[in-house]
């Protein structure tokens, strides 16, 4: 059991990459990229987890209470924002690709067309 979260990380990363490689739609491709990125959340949170610990919010708890690592939470949080921005930018590019080529399939877009 103790290795399962790390195995999930590897699975999410590779399955997301598979989606990107075989994608036939730029919107689908963007979603696949977010799957790859979500593996980093799982990794960060898994690294900082402690058995039987609570979230590092001490509003109603004393600091003697066992809590998980707050640094990885802060990093994950930054990660989420970056993912949102990257996805938005890629979707904007997808909109422009559709305008230019009339399709969202990467295989149908030939940028060298004269």
């Amino acid at each position, binding site marked *: 059991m103790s290795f399962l979260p790390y195995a999930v*990380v590897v699975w999410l990363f*590779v399955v997301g*990459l598979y989606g990107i490689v075989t994608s036939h739609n730029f919107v689908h491709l963007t979603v696949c990229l977010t799957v790859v990125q979500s593996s980093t959340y799982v990794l960060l949170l898994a690294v900082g*987890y402690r058995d039987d610990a609570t979230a590092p*919010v001490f509003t109603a708890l004393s*600091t003697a209470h066992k809590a998980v690592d*707050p640094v990885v939470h*802060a990093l994950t949080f930054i990660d989420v924002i970056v993912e949102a*921005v990257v996805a*938005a930018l890629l979707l904007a590019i997808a909109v422009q690709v559709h305008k230019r080529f009339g399709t969202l399939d990467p295989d149908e877009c030939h940028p060298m067309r004269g």
Partner: protein
Amino acid sequence: MSSRTRVVVFGVAASGFAALLLWGFVGLPDFGHYRGPYGLILNKTVVSARHVTNVPTAVNFDYRAIDTLGEEFILLSGAVGLALTLRSRREREERPPETPDRGLEHTSEALRIAGLALVGPLLVLGFYILAHGHLSPGGGFQGGVILASALLLACLAGEFATLRRGRPWLVMEAAGGLGAAGYAFLGLAGLLGASAYFADLVPLGPMGKITSGGTIPIANAPVALEVTAAFLIVWSELLDQALLVRRRR
């Protein structure tokens, strides 16, 4: 490359990559056995040192405040990049403004009423989350996204065309820049007024109250402004594209 060869090539590369990744993870501490030291030290000291009960917020806005500055600029540049990507072609395609926005009249009454009714509560929730980031989960980023969602709901309720006439881009861009600059200058104030970038300038205040935390809750305000503006720019640019497409039909 045919799609079959592509999958085969990917399969070979990915299985090697996955094996290396798994091999690398074997050396990590077992799940649930975090060894520290930083997280453990922070959990012990932050509450008394910063009078903040939500430790990740203290990490983001105090110990790693300069990284948050970088992250804020990532968000801003992402929004600007999206606007540039979509606007470069919009000007050429845009029809004269007297063209009526067809399709917007199709927004159903139920959607309009529900959307507009939710705007107020969402604004209140957004400000609450924004103001309590140092006490409970939340803060400038989360509050900003909720505030932006409230305004997006107003757009979805059919008011986008109305909002669009008021040249909202000018306001949103100004707000985004102001938020990013405000956060950067707040850090500079710490550098000039105290000892270091983002050093505390104001008293830490009573523990567990909304006035606690020194600079941390103050730093959340410009961040919220910037996040709200950035997300609104992103959504309104994409909505605008949808309108363009609809109008062309």
